[in-house]
């Protein structure tokens, strides 16, 4: 029997930093009676909002790790993932979107659609997450929700349509008019918990009617019944209208827009109604797993609780009682005491405690059915692992993980810190696939890698706070790469005779640049000049050489190796000998193939008041930035540019000081591009110096 999941909603709250996501989550928890008092984000009362559970988050007023939380609204069970707003943590956002069925896109009624909203929107598109929008901060001066709706249309291409209009704006914000019921809603009481429904004020009636017509018009495209009702001039019932809007929302062809002010406790309850009316149930979303027994054929999952288990671990957290693994169940029911298998390593695991999370407090449950989000205790796994019932061999599609672009050397202060540091690093790299760590064998330093300066900063801070690991950090290093620009031939013989059996191998062929792959190996040997059993050794030797360029020692990409001749010796040839020959051959050809250094180029988008436009462009230009364009938005303007990552260190401080703190920017990896000659020389010098100090 299929479990009825009509009353489950798994939603995310995504938006630009500082548009009030966490405040909104806090209010939702309050109205759904999960918490009994409201706290502010920045912790004026020393408690902090419930969803920002990490101490550091409370201090900085930003959300770092997404906390999953469960609540109930009018008989519906809602799982909420609070996602971080800063671009450096987008892997968190992407991960949450992967397990969600719908989302609330929060926008600031003053700031409107900002560059971060555009990034988040792209991510929602990638995972096809239907969303409703909430225009927050309507109580702030300069609030203009309809301008934001315009931006949703023009900048994000959403077919946005208002579900409400505000009653008063800025300090005068009193409530909203519900355009479906055509009633005015006011929110009384200390925390806006008492909803008072009245007739629409006279002065707003005409506007409300016009906006309702727009709504009905937009919705009619998604419902024949509604179109019929309009043509026959029948009464349009709320059910009919909601059904049509919902239809459009699920197809991502319509974005219903709610508005209010979370901080002033206005119009959060209607937004919750919107979530239950308009966002999809788990079974309405198509989820796909890959069948490992059948050549990774995609299989559409059915959300059936009676079927064998398929669940995805999407987030790990280190709690007081060991590792807490957040999972989303796609099929079957994960029960206390049942046995599940981790598809990645085939390990059997017995499910111990099953809990539903409420930020950092938890509630024990017996099972999690298909469509549910919850957490398991005491399970060893990595983020992104799939769990299944015995006998099943399916995996959830792998999540898109960008490669790290920046690295930092860290040195523990003492032995105790060393222990704590390795514990912390182990945990972080399990939790966050974009955070990597390794030991550089030459310098013996521990290196951490990530997606940006702030990303690594936060982890260094967390090491200190959560693990008590005092570390000192080196200068951030950019992940340069090397590649070749022309074809070069090689013909290399590796010969060694040091008593006993010798080593012999000759390899000939050429290397050439390719643009669409990191490494390609092609064997064009005919007649067995190199016996077939040594070919894999040759490939291995070339591949090893790619890890570090002979000159600047950066990883090499975009090389095609073709071997077409060679020689072997009946006694002295071996795998080892051919590996060494391949390394020698690569070294010989590489320098003649005109190697160049490539650097990561970031897409940097700055939003600034127009009076600082000139100086911001100057700042970007000084950093070897190429300005793609500037967009005038009235008082604000948006400058889009491409800047080498190596030039972006400390940019936030300089940007703040030269714009009186009024500009903000986002940065994401765009592409790798060749480094200009003069800079390449500088990099070579630095590498040489580093080597010297390491020696």
């Amino acid at each position: 029997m299929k479990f009825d999941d009509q009353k489950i909603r798994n939603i995310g709250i995504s938006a630009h930093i500082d548009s009030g996501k966490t405040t909104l989550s806090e209010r939702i928890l309050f109205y759904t009676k999960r918490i009994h008092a409201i706290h502010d984000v920045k912790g004026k009362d020393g408690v902090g909002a419930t969803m920002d559970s990490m101490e550091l988050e409370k201090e900085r007023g930003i959300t770092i790790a997404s906390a999953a939380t469960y609540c109930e609204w009018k008989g519906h069970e809602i799982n909420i993932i609070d996602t971080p707003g800063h671009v450096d943590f987008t892997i968190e956002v992407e991960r949450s979107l992967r397990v969600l069925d719908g989302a609330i896109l929060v926008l600031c009624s003053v700031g409107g659609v900002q560059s971060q909203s555009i990034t988040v929107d792209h991510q929602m598109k990638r995972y096809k997450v239907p969303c409703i929008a909430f225009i927050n901060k309507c109580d702030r001066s300069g609030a203009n929700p309809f301008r934001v709706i315009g931006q949703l249309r023009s900048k994000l291409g959403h077919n946005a349509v208002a579900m409400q209009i505000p009653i008063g704006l800025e300090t005068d914000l009193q409530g909203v008019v519900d355009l479906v019921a055509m009633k005015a809603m006011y929110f009384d009481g200390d925390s806006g918990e008492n909803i008072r429904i009245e007739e629409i004020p006279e002065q707003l009636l005409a506007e409300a009617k016009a906006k309702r017509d727009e709504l009905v018009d937009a919705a009619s495209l998604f419902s024949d019944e509604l179109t019929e009702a309009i043509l026959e001039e029948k009464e349009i019932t709320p059910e009919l209208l909601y059904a049509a809007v919902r239809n459009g929302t699920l197809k991502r062809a319509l974005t219903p827009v709610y508005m209010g002010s979370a901080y002033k406790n206005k119009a959060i309850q209607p937004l919750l109604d919107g979530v239950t009316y308009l966002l999809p149930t788990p079974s309405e979303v198509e989820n796909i797993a890959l069948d490992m027994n059948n050549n990774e054929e995609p299989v559409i999952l059915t959300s059936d609780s009676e079927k064998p288990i398929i669940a995805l671990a999407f987030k790990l957290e280190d709690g007081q009682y060991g590792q807490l693994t957040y999972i989303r169940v796609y099929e079957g029911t994960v029960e206390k005491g049942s046995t599940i298998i981790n598809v990645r390593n085939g390990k059997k695991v017995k499910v111990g405690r099953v809990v539903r999370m409420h930020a950092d407090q938890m509630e024990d449950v017996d099972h999690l059915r298909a469509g549910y989000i919850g957490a398991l205790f005491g399970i060893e796994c990595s983020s992104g692992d799939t769990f299944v019932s015995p006998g099943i061999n399916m995996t959830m599609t792998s999540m898109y993980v960008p490669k790290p672009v920046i690295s930092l050397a860290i040195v523990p202060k003492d032995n105790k810190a060393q222990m704590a540091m390795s514990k912390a690093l182990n945990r972080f790299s399990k939790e966050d696939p974009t955070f990597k760590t390794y030991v550089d064998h030459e310098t013996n330093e521990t290196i951490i890698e990530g997606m940006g300066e702030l990303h690594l900063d936060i982890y260094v801070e967390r090491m200190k706070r959560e693990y008590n690991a005092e570390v000192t950090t080196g200068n951030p290093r950019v992940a340069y790469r090397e590649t070749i620009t022309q074809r070069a031939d090689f013909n290399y013989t590796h010969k060694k005779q040091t008593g006993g059996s010798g080593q012999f191998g000759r390899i000939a062929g050429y290397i050439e640049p390719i643009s669409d792959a990191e490494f390609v190996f092609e064997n064009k040997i005919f007649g067995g000049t190199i016996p077939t059993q040594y070919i894999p050794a040759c490939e291995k030797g070339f591949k090893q050489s790619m890890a570090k360029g002979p000159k600047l020692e950066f990883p090499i990409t975009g090389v095609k190796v073709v071997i077409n001749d060679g020689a072997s010796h009946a006694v002295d040839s071996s795998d080892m000998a051919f590996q060494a020959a391949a390394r020698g051959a690569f070294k010989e050809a590489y320098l003649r193939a005109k190697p160049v250094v490539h650097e990561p180029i970031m897409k940097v988008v700055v939003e600034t008041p127009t009076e600082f436009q000139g100086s911001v462009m100057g700042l970007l230009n000084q950093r070897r930035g190429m300005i793609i364009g500037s967009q005038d938005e009235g008082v604000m303007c948006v400058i889009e540019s491409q800047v080498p990552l190596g030039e972006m260190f400390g940019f936030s401080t300089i940007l703040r000081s030269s714009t009186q703190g009024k500009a903000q920017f986002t940065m994401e990896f765009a592409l790798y591009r060749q480094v200009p000659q003069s800079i390449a020389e500088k990099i070579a010098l630095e590498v040489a110096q580093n080597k010297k100090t390491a020696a």
Partner: protein
Amino acid sequence: MVGARALRQEDNVIHLTYEDMIMIKKEIIERNPLLNLGYENDYILPSGGLGAVLAHAGVGKTALLVQMALHAMMHEQPVLHVSLNDAVSKVDVWYRELFNDMASSYDVAQTGEYWEKMLNYRFIMTFRVEGFSVPKLEERLTDLMEQNIFKPYAVIIDGLKFDESGRGRLLELKELAAKYDMRIWFTVHTHRHEPPKEDGLPLSFLHVADLFDVLVQLAAKGPEVYIKALKGQSPDAKQDALLLDPATMLIKE
């Protein structure tokens, strides 16, 4: 004259020969509709000159001007694209698509690299229609020029309304073009309900027509697009309209 950013590139980059790019460049020049219409000067407009492309909505005014801009960028002449309708990203897509269309038959790695270099010769600026004014444009321009970020050789202004903006604004723009040694191209949206006069110009444009050095018209006949010179071509040039490839806005082969 080459912009400051272009100069800096010259210092640092070793020039390689891009055989494929030479081919694309040749194709763009040979199939350039304006050169084929009998506009003699390779750069068509003199310094300080104004030019306009007239057409109904949806015929390809912007595409034609973007193609002209690509022509200039290939000659290392910086182009400032001012759009009053579209966002920066959308304008960028115009350039990418037209370039990719031409480059599709060539080596991707090479053309990709060349494209990155050409981008140095383009700057996109967008304004809201109501927020656009000549002093504002000049302020932005001087911002760029004083800091040696960008000095345009040609400017494209897409989306300016001619029936509303009077002669005064165009005079200001002409002055600006002369002051900074630039030439400015405009798109002019003509209306279907307004039949053209004998010289092909719509009535609502007549009051400013004398300010322009070059005027060309695009017209769609069924699925085909024709281009016709209305003003400024050399007297002995052929007067017929030429057929364009609607995908690239180059002369159809």
